[in-house]
Every structure is written in C-alpha cells, then in structure tokens.
C-alpha cells in the first residue's frame, strides 16, 4: 500500500489523446474495463480521425478516448476532461482548448522537438512558454522511460517505444487505484503467440504503476467509490456490440436464423465484424457488392423465412431506399439498422449526428410507411434490436433502427439480462390455405389478420401455399396484380393503418419529480444522456423541469399529443435542424421549441442546462 495520501472524488473525466498509431483507443478500453469491473458507473466517448492513419504528429492524425466515471450513476462521457493524457504536441494542441482551468495534463515530452512543434503550429514550446500555467502539467519522457524499462527485451527503440501507452495506462491506473490484473490477462491472450511483446507490454504497464508509486511528481492518489447500481451481473458494452447481441438474441428468441446482408461503412462496419464471429449461432453474414445487394439479399433471406437484417449508415440508407419500398410492398419482415453519421453526402464519416430521421420516415417513392425505433444509450441498442425484430416479424414489415456514431462507439456498464427474461417472438408462419374458391382451397398471401392487419408469411417449402408476390399493386386479399383504383386507395390506407396500429408501443413516460413543471424537455435517441444530465443540473439549480424521451418514432406513443399539450413549453434538443420537431408540430400542432446543433459531437450537459434555464426564464 502506497505511503502517499489519497483524496476521495465523486467523479472524474479523463481523456487519452495521441497519434492514431499510439493505441489510445486500446488504452482507453483497458482503463474503462478496469473501471467497470471496479464498479464505478461510467460513460465513454472515442473520437477517431477520418483518415486511417494521417501522418504521425499532425493534428488530423490525433485520436482520442474520453472516459467519465463516478461513484453515482452518470449519463454522459463528461463535458470537459479533468485529466488530459497527451502523447505528443499534436495531441496537446488538439485537446487543450477543451480543458477547464486547473485541469491536470500528463504529457509525453519526448516529441516536443522544434520540428514537431512547428508541424502543428506551435511557435514556442508550450511546456516552457508559460501558456499552460493555468493547468497542472506533468511533463514526462514516457518514450525514453519505455525504452529504458524494456532494454533487456532486445527490442529496437521503435518497438520498445510502442509500449509507452501501457506505461501511461499503468501510471493512470495507479493514480485512480484501478487493478492491473484485467489488463495483464488481456495482454496475455492478445499476444499469446509473441511472448516478448506480451512481456514487454506487461513490464511497461507495471513500470507506469511503479513510477506513480515512487516519483515525487505525483503526490496524491484518488479514490472513486463504486456506484450503487441495481443488483445484477454487469459488463461494459458499446452500442454496436449491444446491437449485434440484440440481433442474435432476436434470432434465438424467434427461432429464425439470422441473415445479415451488409456492405462495410463507418460507423456501422463493426456490427458486420461482430456478427461474422458468431457462426456457431447459425448467423450468416454476407458482405455484399454494395448496399443495394446487401438489403436485397436480406430481403431474399426473409422471403425464405430468415430474420433478414441489413446494417449501414446514412449514405447506405439512401441507396437502399428503393428496396425498402419493395419490402413495404411485399410486407416481409426486415430490419434496417442505420448507424447515423455526419452528413450530407460523405459528410463527416466518423462523427455522430441524428439527421436521418426524416429520411427514415419518407426516403422512398410514394406512401411507404416504415416503423422506426431509436435506442437511447449503448446498452439500449440491445433492447431496441429485439423490439425492431418483434415489430418486423409480428407486422411483416421492414423496420428502421436509428442508432448513431455516439451510441455505436460509446460504452456504458450493462446489466446482463437473463435469457429467459427476453421476449419471445412468434413468426407464426402460415401452413394452411386460408380461402375457398368455389370449394377449392386457396392461399391468399394478402388476406390480413383483422387484429394486426399483418399478412400471412408462407415460406417456400410449405406445400399447398405456393404464391407469387411483387412490387406492383396487389388486390386486397388475393394479392394478385390489381390496377383497380379503389383497391389501390384501400391498399395504401391498409399499409398505413397497419403501421399506425402497431401495438405494444409503450406510452411516453414523463419524469416530473416536482409535479409542477411548466417546461417539458423531450428528445429521442442518443441525446438521452446529455438531456438527462442537463435536466438534473437544472433541477439541482432549483428549476422545475419535466423530461420525456422517445424510443419509438413511428408510430409515436399514443399519449404523445396529450403529454405535449400538458406543458406550457416543450423544448426539443436535436443533433439536426429540427426533424422530430417537424413531425410533432405537424401531427399535434404544438409549438415545439427546437434547440439544434449539428457539430458531429454529442451535446454537452452544461450547454443544455443553460438552454433549459434560458427557456424557463423565457429569453
């Protein structure tokens, strides 16, 4: 046990920043899982450059990972870092402006050469010119330290210096009392086939810890007690991982084999990568030649009785539009996952945004309604996938799941559900004819269930139910091609009514502790965290604020209109120019106030707290 003094904190925000090559994401991941296992609540925000590996030491090349952890439940990765770990001048330059005065900066001094400084536009050395006086700066030559620590491994300087991230991790682990064993186990498996690298990294990790232990430079350690959370077994999970698991769970709980037809695209590719690992679950992943083939194959698989899924981001959804329309007309189950990113066009591929809502609603020719579900946190991606599958299978319809880059790559502790508690999804395949034609039994593929308006799903291989369907308008019931005007009008309305009537969409829950709030703050999708945190701050500041969050965007919860009208003011922050606001205003004629920022970054709780106060004070 260290002789150094220990200060207790309730929350800390740490940001690791370095070259794309410095392994900052890995460092962050490891610190995160140690923190998770330790029992703090946490939330993370990785941030990568769009280039694979922009030239070393340049601003575009900087990659970072932010972690917020606390002894109480938290909702966001934190607005501003208390601690910045910067592995080079570029990392310092790119991140220092986000730091509040008094923040701690731990910086690898090795690269602070005149050339490197000039490269990022520093005329003088910030470590010496006093520009960082308002921060607590710890300049350490981590690189030489790593080389020194690993000299007996017979590695080149270059190789040895690669372990500097482990050294930094070790140091931070010491500072915040994070156990090392998890990371050591991780390194042992990761480098199982290369003993030297494995041991070098473990040695660097320990060296970092010991450096904290011994050096004068670090006087205090910090302690953040575990956070009280509902009892259960927990793990840390990112949105994309939770989404992949949710799809596998939906396959298991429906008994439908999972087929993913997908084409790689940031930030959705990881779902394909993850699902590709789980062939033992009967999961088929098909990397198609393009997005259209991806959804086409998924639709073909659905026709054959599989749980058809396609994953992409905005530009991919645009390409899939026509096929989504076909799925609407065929009335087959299909799940389209849109991991939203910055747009328009190629836009900001690695940044987050929630501007595909109207595309999801209307991005097809003619009247082609599609249900939309939007998860509100990384862990919620799991439940959202199951819900999307329930709707798709029960109502024989394509469903769009709107996640985004922030949820996809961000992580949080996740209470692992018991499999038997997960909903069961009944495909209820048609096996019998459903109509008599002058004594002759027939199968009518568009004879709907009067309850759900869903049509029967008869898969090839079912004797006696042979039938043909297509994208041309079909006669209500028989499903034969029909150009009859009245039938067309009826079918258009039936397709709409089926979606509007989807059952099991829970009422909007309003949280209004004081019960006297006159302002309602609403949101949808990934803004749940920042909005929730902001509302808490406003309340802590003595304001009465009600909050409600949308998980179903189409159809909307039945009580939406009633809830919106209950409040004097309704505030809706969105990472777009007001897309849900448009839908709510049109449907309920309520003067929803939008707060819109399209920066490719999640909202900051502080920013929203201020907006809330301003709206309450009516400016």
């Amino acid at each position, binding site marked *: 046990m260290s002789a150094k003094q220990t200060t207790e904190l309730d929350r800390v925000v740490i940001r690791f920043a370095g070259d794309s090559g410095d392994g900052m994401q890995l460092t962050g991941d490891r610190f995160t899982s140690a923190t998770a*296992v330790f*029992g703090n609540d946490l939330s993370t925000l990785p941030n990568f450059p769009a280039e694979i590996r922009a030239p070393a030491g340049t601003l575009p090349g900087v990659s970072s990972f932010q972690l917020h952890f606390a002894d109480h439940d938290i909702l966001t990765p934190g607005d501003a870092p208390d601690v910045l770990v910067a592995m080079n001048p570029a990392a310092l330059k790119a991140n220092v402006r986000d730091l509040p005065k008094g923040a701690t900066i731990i910086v690898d001094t090795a690269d602070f050469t005149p050339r490197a400084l000039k490269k990022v536009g520093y005329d003088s050395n910030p470590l010496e010119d006093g520009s960082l006086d308002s921060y607590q700066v710890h300049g350490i030559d981590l690189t030489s330290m790593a080389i020194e620590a690993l000299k007996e491994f017979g590695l080149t300087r270059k190789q040895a210096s690669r372990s500097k991230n482990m050294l930094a991790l070790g140091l931070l682990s010491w500072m915040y009392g994070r156990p090392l064993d998890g990371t050591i186990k991780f390194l042992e498996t990761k480098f199982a086939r290369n003993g030297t690298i494995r041991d070098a990294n473990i040695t660097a990790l320990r060296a970092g810890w010991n450096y904290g232990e011994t050096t004068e430079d670090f006087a205090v350690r910090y302690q953040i007690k575990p956070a009280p*959370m509902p009892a259960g*077994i927990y793990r840390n999970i990112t949105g994309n991982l939770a989404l992949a698991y949710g799809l596998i769970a939906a396959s298991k709980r429906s008994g439908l084999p999972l*087929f993913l*037809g997908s084409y790689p695209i940031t930030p959705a590719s990881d779902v394909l990568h993850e699902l590709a690992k789980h062939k*033992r679950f009967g999961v088929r992943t098909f990397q198609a030649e393009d997005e259209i083939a991806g959804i*086409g*194959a998924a639709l073909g698989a659905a026709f054959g009785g599989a749980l058809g899924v396609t994953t992409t981001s905005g530009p991919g959804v645009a390409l899939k539009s026509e096929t989504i329309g076909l799925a609407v007309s065929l009335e087959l189950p299909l799940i389209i996952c849109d991991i939203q990113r910055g747009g328009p066009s190629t836009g900001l591929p690695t940044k987050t945004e929630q501007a595909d809502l109207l595309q999801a609603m209307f991005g097809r020719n003619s009247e082609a309604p599609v249900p939309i579900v939007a998860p509100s946190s990384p862990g919620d991606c799991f439940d959202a996938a199951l819900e999307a599958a329930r709707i798709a299978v029960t109502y024989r319809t394509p469903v769009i799941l709107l996640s985004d880059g922030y949820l996809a790559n961000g992580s949080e502790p996740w209470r692992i559900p018991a499999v038997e508690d997960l909903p069961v999804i009944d495909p209820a395949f048609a096996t019998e004819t459903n109509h008599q034609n002058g004594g002759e039994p027939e199968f009518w593929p568009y004879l709907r269930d009067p309850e759900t308006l869903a049509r029967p799903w008869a898969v090839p291989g079912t004797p006696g139910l042979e039938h*043909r369907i297509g994208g041309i308008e079909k006669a209500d019931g028989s499903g034969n091609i029909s150009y009859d005007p009245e039938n067309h009008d009826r079918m258009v309305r039936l397709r709409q009514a089926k979606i509007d009537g989807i059952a099991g969409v829970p009422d909007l829950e309003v949280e209004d502790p004081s019960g006297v709030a006159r302002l309602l703050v609403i949101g949808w999708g990934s803004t749940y965290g920042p909005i929730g945190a902001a509302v808490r701050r406003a309340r802590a500041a003595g304001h009465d604020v009600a909050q409600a969050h949308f998980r179903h965007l189409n159809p909307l919860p039945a009580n939406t209109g009633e809830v919106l009208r209950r409040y004097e003011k309704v505030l809706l922050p969105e990472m777009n120019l007001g897309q849900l606001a448009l839908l709510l205003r049109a449907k309920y004629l309520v003067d929803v106030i939008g707060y819109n920022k399209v920066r490719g970054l999640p909202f900051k709780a502080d920013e929203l707290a201020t907006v809330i106060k301003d709206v309450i004070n009516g400016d």
Partner: protein
Amino acid sequence: MTETITRPSLPGLRDVPTTGNPQTKKDFTSDQEVRWCPGCGDYAVLATVQGFLPELNLRRENIVFISGIGCSSRFPYYMNTYGLHSIHGRAPAIATGLAATRPDLSVWVVTGDGDGLSIGGNHLIHAMRRNVNLTILLFNNRIYGLTKGQYSPTSEIGKITKSTPLGSLDTPFNPVSLALGAEATFVARTIDSDRAHLTAVLRAAAAHRGTSFVEIYQNCNIFNDGAFEMLKSPDSRDEVLIRLEHGQPIRFGADLHFGVRRNPETSVIEVCNGDDPGVLTHDAHNDDPSVAFALSRLADPGTLARSPIGVFRDVDRPTYDDLMSGQLRDAAEQQGEGDLAALLAGTDTWTIDSRV
C-alpha cells in the same frame, strides 16, 4: 407429409426434396392469365420451362422463381411455384440471400438484357463470381420491351430506337464473354424457339451446382421483331449457328462444311473448312475459360451470325452457399452450438449485490 422424400442425383439439386408423384406441365402452370403480347418469344420459353420441370420431379413448393422488372420478369406469375417479382436489376442479389439460407430450394432467376445487363449488371457478375447455386435465365431480346422500345446493352451499334433516333453509339456486351470474364462456372446460350435445345440447356443448367448462366435469344415481335431471324429461319440458320456439344468437333453448316479451328499463326480462333485437320473438339469442362471465351468472340456483334449456342463452359467449383453452410457447421462442431447466455456475459463481468 407421409410420403418419403428422396433426393435427385443432380449435383445442382442435391438438397432439394423430390416427390414420388409424377408431374405434368399443368402442375407448373399458375392460374394467372399470361399477359405478354401475342407472338412474344416469352411464351415459348415459358412453355418449355413448364414442360421441362416435371422431369426433375422436385416438390413444387421447393422451387422459387425470382425476377426483376421487364416483360420477361413477369415470368414468375405464370409458374405455379413460389415466386418473387422484385425490382429492376436486383433479382440476383435477392436470390443470393434466399439460396444462401435455403439449400433445400431450387432457385431460378429470370431477367432481361436490360434488367440483367444494364441496371443489374453488377449483381449479375458478382453472383457468378461467388458461384451461388442459382440458375439464371437471361431473356435477351436486344431491346427494352416493357418500356416500349429503347435500345439495350445488347443492341447492335447504330440501333434506331425511341431513345436513339440517329442510332445507338455503344458497343453491345457479349453476355457470354462478360460471364466468362466474371469467373462464371456455367455459361450457355440457347434460343426461345428451339424447344429441344432450350430443354437440353435447362437440363445441364439445373444439373450444375453453382451459378448457371443461360442466355436465351428471345424475339420481341413488337419492338425488335426478327432480331434473331437469321439464326432461326430454316434457310439460313444452319450456316450461321454453331452448335457446341461437349466432346464433339465444332462443325456447322448444312452438311457440316464449316469448322472452327485455332489459326496456327495468329493463334486466333476462326472458322475453317469442316474437314480441316485443326477443327477443335469442344471441351466444356476445361478449367481454363480461354477457349470458351475465344468461341464467344466468333459471333458477329451486329448480326450475331456465327453465334455459338449450347454449353460454353461447365466446370466444378465450390459454391458460395455450400462454403457458407460449411463454415457454420464447422463452427458449431468445433466450438459447440452458440450459448446465448455465455455470449451476453462475455469475459469481463462484475457483480453488484443488492445494496441500493
């Protein structure tokens, strides 16, 4: 279903259940009124396919026809099997998803020269590269029929159509050359009106495991009537049609007075006298597609004179769907069936007891 399920011997249909009951053409005729123009070549192809299927004795419910959009793509409506009339050009992609998940189905794609080679060209070449277990029937009438007569990617240069009043400018695709360039394992060509030949080609295509690509010269008597007249009319066809048969010397002409040989100097494949010692023997099973490719170049891109018909290439290569199923099987065998609870838990977990 008490009746026992037997499997046909054809590799392409290995996993498709058959029926003991004898079948007739009527079993494959749907109740939908056929709506092609009177005289359309599509009628002949439909009749031949309906007439051929009973020979396979497959369970009707295990056959699926998937099409895109076009006159030819109305085909599935007229087959009393499962069918999907999809959207323009996408049938090969849709069929890939179905075939990859349902090895027990016999999956057929029906497409046109516009549907399959214009908007759908990419899906088509990728399906062939992957060698998905499908049979693709491309109805080539060298025109856009359904949209009332624009030129297509197989129309001859200079084609005068609604969209090209002064004549089209682009060199047409040779569908057989394109397929061979796209790593296809089975490539054939036949003619709507030659029932016997069409049937033989369908037989070989169905037998082949993998993507069987069949180009069918089909007459559109409304917008491109007579496009294949030279290849069809009794007085000219023998002189301009080269019938390929595996293992047979490549000869043609009324009394086989023409042959096909490799020019010793230029080493180009060319037409020669039927008695030329160099006359080639057709080898559809040649692993190297080069000779098949060379044969495909004999046809005049404009008139199609000297079009070879029959099976150009028929070689074995593992199919995408079999390989995929194999990976799933191996994974399950080696690591055991997936356990959802274990998956969700992963390795890094911690427990919170009931404080709160």
